[in-house]
């Protein structure tokens, strides 16, 4: 790690001013940033402690939703009674992520901004377009088993590694941030980017910004999160599914599906949602909807297994939500 300064700003405006300096990075729980600093992937010379901003806490909103402060720890959010009873998909996603120790440290804002765990990104002896733009992507012809199958580019196969953001994508969450040009609200589904020819940029958040909160609209339907991984616990998703389902008289009235572990961003499965809305809530329609989404997959030989895995996981998750006996 290189030598660095540390500042604990008094308010959000001061944090934005500090973060607008080159070489500055925001730190909250540090679970991702400190690790990347040890690896030499992140080399900040100024850390701005956004925990000093007192942004933790979950509040009810006037419209019946929730406002989650960016400093809220993953463990507190997962255990919040309102999240557990009204947004189980979010509790389940958080509880499936990382370990008890990491969830106690990891913040909501930091979780949104965590970097990919692609092994080429974290290995500074290798090329990586995300870490060193223009250096190349060894994953295309190398190790890609854990990497993306949707929305990929020739420049990057990295995935967004998180679980929380996948649930937030299915919940139509909105990210609130203070930027150097003032406050912004960005729908979660638009917050993370696809790699295209600029994989070094993970999100649309302008440089120098501080994420202040995430808001959830009022809860609807039933929801849950399922995650397929190589170990039973404490592993990143190979594929995960967040689903919110409303069924009336056996017909799908509304459905929202997001996939994790398969793309550079939480992947909202809009084609599947369109295919399913108005259809009978049966395994057959669920399979057709999953196929409609996954037809656009561009897997490598190593990660082609993710496509049928995602299909089965979507169908299984939706069946679980209909109360079908699995």
């Amino acid at each position: 790690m290189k030598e660095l300064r540390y500042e604990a700003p008094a308010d959000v405006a001061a944090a934005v001013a500090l973060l607008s300096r080159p070489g500055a990075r925001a730190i909250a729980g540090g679970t991702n940033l400190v690790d990347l600093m040890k690896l030499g992937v992140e080399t900040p010379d100024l850390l701005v402690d956004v925990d000093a901003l007192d942004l933790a806490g979950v509040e009810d909103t006037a419209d019946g939703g929730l406002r989650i402060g960016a400093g809220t720890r993953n463990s507190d959010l997962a255990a919040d009674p309102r999240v557990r009873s009204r947004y189980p998909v979010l509790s389940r996603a958080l509880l499936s992520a990382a370990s008890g120790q990491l969830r106690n440290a990891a913040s909501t804002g930091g979780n949104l901004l965590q970097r990919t765990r692609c092994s080429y990104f974290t290995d500074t002896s290798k090329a990586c377009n995300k870490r060193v733009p223009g250096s190349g992507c060894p994953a295309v012809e190398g190790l890609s088993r854990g990497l993306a199958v949707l929305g990929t580019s020739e420049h990057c196969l990295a995935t967004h590694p998180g679980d929380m953001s996948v649930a937030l994508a299915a919940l139509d969450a909105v990210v609130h941030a203070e930027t150097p040009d003032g406050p912004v609200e960005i729908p979660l589904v638009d917050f993370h980017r696809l790699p295209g020819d600029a994989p070094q940029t993970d999100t649309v958040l302008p440089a120098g910004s501080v994420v202040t909160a995430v808001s959830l609209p009022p809860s609807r339907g039933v929801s849950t999160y399922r995650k397929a991984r190589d170990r039973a616990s404490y592993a990143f998703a190979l594929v995960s599914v967040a689903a919110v389902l409303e069924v009336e008289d056996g017909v799908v009235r509304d459905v929202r599906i997001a996939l994790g572990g398969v793309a550079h961003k939480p992947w909202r499965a809009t084609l599947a949602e369109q295919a399913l809305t108005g259809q009978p809530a049966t395994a057959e329609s669920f399979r057709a909807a999953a196929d409609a989404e996954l037809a656009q997959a561009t897997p490598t030989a190593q990660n082609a297994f993710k496509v049928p895995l995602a299909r089965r996981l979507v169908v299984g998750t939706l069946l679980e939500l209909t109360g079908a006996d699995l």
Partner: protein
Amino acid sequence: MTTRSSLTLTVNGTDHALELDHRTTLLDALREHLGLTGSKKGCDHGQCGACTVLLGGRRVNACLTLAVQVRGREVTTVEGLGTPEDLSPLQEAFLECDALQCGYCTSGQLVSGVAVQQEAADGWPSAVTEDLTAGLSGPVVLDDAEVRERMSGNLCRCGAYRGITAAVLA
């Protein structure tokens, strides 16, 4: 450029005034500056759990925590759980259940185990808790599956997991 800070770390109830490089992790501060070597450096990347300490009563990986960020907050290490003459209940249970072999991961397992018992008492669900709302009105009852899931952030290369699980349940 100021790359060091003077700060107070409160560890096991005692205040320590230190001047530390901002890069210093809580783990290195404990081990190298305070001589508290109970917390172990295994992977140094938050993957093994050997460095687990309580921060404000909650378990965290000390290797991923910068000391400067926890100034003034209460840190509890394995040295604060019990003493050789007066072991804590979980330490007694580890002996009873043969919950270790080489012992390198044990301090992290103990600190994590104490936290797991508290989290369940507080009604926190886990990934294997079937009914997320079950703990809203009281503790979550731990069983084998719950302990294995909740302790998954602590690795044991000797494979003493059966004993560890039994000790946390004892």
